[in-house]
């Protein structure tokens, strides 16, 4: 599998995502100004502060040339994972439902959180049993997931809520404890916590690796 990780001015966790993706295949960085996705099998929109998070997290990055290609790639069924700022960019770009608002605690917050895998039958979580708790760090200032009630109901019904915070760990105030959602086709997934920072026991947990392993399984399954 070859993964492409976007690099915007202000991206911070793109190299971390690259290191994580390299554990399951090849991984290259894709410059925001280029439209060529270099034939990757999957795209990661990484964490950080693209364009300083000025105005609104993700608001400016979603207009970059590379995002035009990513939108097309996603429409064609390509796997797209948005992590933290990447999740915000994907929501701003309309590839995922909802929006991420400033944390309810009004502060950038770093915390190791436990995520419940709500949907294990997705291209991003197939390596996890449903109900499993993944210990993964979260770190952000705008991670409060919001969508209107009708949308939330519909997301839950259609299995689009993929991961949730344990209720006592939902520091950002996300509605219905939502930590990550996918699109209706299931090929685009965004979450606020950082699976790429949970791929090595030395620096934390290895629970995040499952996300990358699931993506590899999805890509390789599709190839056979």
């Amino acid at each position, binding site marked *: 599998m070859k993964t492409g990780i976007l690099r915007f001015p202000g991206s*911070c966790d793109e190299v971390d995502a690259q290191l994580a993706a390299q554990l399951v295949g090849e991984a290259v960085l894709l410059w925001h100004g280029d439209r060529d996705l270099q034939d990757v099998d999957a795209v990661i929109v990484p964490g950080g502060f693209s*364009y*300083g998070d000025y105005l609104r997290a993700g608001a400016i990055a979603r207009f970059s040339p590379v995002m035009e290609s990513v939108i097309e790639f996603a429409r064609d069924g390509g796997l797209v994972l948005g992590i933290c700022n990447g999740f915000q960019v994907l929501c701003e770009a309309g590839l995922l439902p909802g929006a991420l608002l400033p944390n309810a605690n009004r*502060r950038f*917050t*770093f915390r190791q959180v436990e995520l419940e895998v709500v949907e294990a039958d997705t291209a991003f979580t197939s390596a996890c049993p449903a109900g499993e708790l993944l210990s993964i760090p979260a*770190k952000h200032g705008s991670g409060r997931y919001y969508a209107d009630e009708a949308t939330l109901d519909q997301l839950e019904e259609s299995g689009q809520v993929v991961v949730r915070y344990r209720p006592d760990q939902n520091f950002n105030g996300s509605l219905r404890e939502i930590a990550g959602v996918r699109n209706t086709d299931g090929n685009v997934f965004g979450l606020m916590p950082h699976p790429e*920072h949970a791929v090595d026991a030395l*620096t*934390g947990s290895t629970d995040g690796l499952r996300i990358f392993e699931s993506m590899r399984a999805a890509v390789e399954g599709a190839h056979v």
Partner: protein
Amino acid sequence: MSEQLPALKDALALGLTEAEYELVCEKQGSPPNQVELAMYSLLWSEHCAYKHSKKLLMTLPTEGPAVVMGPGENAGAVDVGDGLICAFKVESHNHPSAVEPFQGAATGVGGILRDIFAIGARPIAVLDSLRFGDIEASERSRYLLEHAVAGIGHYGNSIGVPTVGGEVYFEAAYEKNCLVNAMALGLGPREQLMRSAAAGVGNVVLIYGASTGRDGIGGASVLASAELGDADDDKRPTVQVGDPFEEKKLMECSLELLELGLIVSLQDLGAAGLTSSACEMASKGEVGIDIDVRKVPLREADMEPFEIMVSESQERMLCVIEPKDVDAVRAICDKWEVSSAAIGEVTDTRLMRIYSDAELVGEMPVEALVDDCPIYDLQPQKPSEPLYDAPPQRLDPSASLSDSLLALVGSPNISSRRPLFEQYDPIVQSRTVRRPEQADAAVLALPNGSALAVSIDGNGRRVAADPYQGTLGVVLECASNLACVGAQPLGTTNNLNFGNPEKPHVAWQLSEAVRAIADACTALEAPIVGGNVSLYNEGASGPIFPTPVIGMVGLMPDVSRAGRLGFVEEGETIALVGPFSPSLDASELSKLRGEPLPDGLPEVDIEAVRAVQLVVRDAVREGLVDSAHDIAEGGIAVALTECALAASLGAAVTLDGQGDVWQALFGEASGGFIVCGHATAIAQLSERTELIVIGKVGGDELRIEVGDEVIELALSDLRTSHRSLEALFQ
């Protein structure tokens, strides 16, 4: 511009003395004009010229086997093996933070990061060292704390450099002068190491990064030709606003330029802006530089030449490049959306010549600007009267041992810093093996399986009680922190935060502290590779506590053996290691009890402490012990609490009942460590060093028996106390 030359009164308003002004006139051969006076006044300021500290700094040990770059460049650097260097430095942003804590702290982080990438290293970590007034009593101090922490987080998080450690103390002596020091570390290939000396007559001087505005032109606005009326006030903002997004691009752009070998010399623009960076580049390279201020990209079009030269706008760099590389350099800047402009040329004149288009608006010998500022001798004198008031009493001296432990664990200087550090991203860059509260030092993995460890420390109260012994304690504590994770010090940086050095008692504090740093760093073989000095931190109520802040970087061969402070397993043996003779002098307990500072502290045996550090270091490296934690504020009882809370594992401990139980439990001193491990391992360790087995890990309470007395506290109660700072951040 105004034709009228500034006069002596302007020089005085800019902080020069009459004698210094006369010396400037002599060096210039005539009274300086507006631009010249502005530049002299900055370069001859305490901040740039180290007028009152230079002689002391010369006494510091700066050489050692690992040192690749000592003091004198933007940051120091040590060799960490495999062709890599670690650059590091600590710097203060005290005054700006007292005025506007969010921006002051944020730009402090921005400034220290530029120093790191200016020498060709990629910033890999930030640490902060903070001092505020009594937060229990002072609304202002709570405000400063909250905003300074937010500012540090804002900058470090947004730029993608992890903040991996730090320290904060609250003491009334900092009420009017808070301290905000930030330290940064960087990693880079040794052959990419960059110096700031300008070279190559005919080479191009290029500025890149943010545009130049009126930021930080505080004092110098007295030079404005127009009378400053109320209406003009907002034309002269002094608050510098940080833009981490701009700096992120600046950093990536700089590192790419260095990697491509396009840069001859590089320097950040920090305090004193273009003036200091250009003059220092010229001075170090023994050349001259011509600058045309009209070529500098401006944020406000109507800036005068002197304003452009002294502006402290953030996120700017100055480099010297070969004329043939100008297009290539500018193309890289464009790629990163960083603006750039060729503004001058390296000359062989040894003059700084400032032009405004074709007009020469300032001409000064580089040597006069940079080297000829008078250096002053200190007049140290130990004060005959106590300098500091006794703190308010917060704990009844007749409180029980258990209540006293709870009070200590919940006191602002000891309680958990989690509400602060969880506003910082400690893990970006995927290198952080130990983050705050996991170990005494932060641990950062290196590519070859080894690791760096870093710690920052500075207990001002103990230094106030005894500048020499107190400072020894600070340096030793830093090294002890490194030992606890298994690291050996490679080098040290320091920030000397003191009051007015022209006062004999402050001069005494300063000289004693520097003497201690020199002695301790020599003994530890941890030479000083850089640092910073922040003087005049005082107001009508007196000086701050003398606060030498020490940052130390060490190396351990095997990252997988990095030590931790929390207990590990039920049933393990707990031992007290080291030549530990606790005393309540200047301790946290005596502070809570409202006792005044003593005059002097017990003597520290540096060699004995160093010896036990080596034993602990090796025991951690070998995996002989499972945890190690040095005893610091609050004594052994607090250290045990921290080991227990970090692991959510209780302990039952018996301490020697001879002597004063208060001293045994809460006394402080250098050289004590709590280690835990299997009984056989502890027995093995006892063959290497003085050690007392004091108890076992287990249960959900902390029980400490001492003589006839017992402390018995549920971990949950200790934890509640330990979280007391959370209330400030609701």
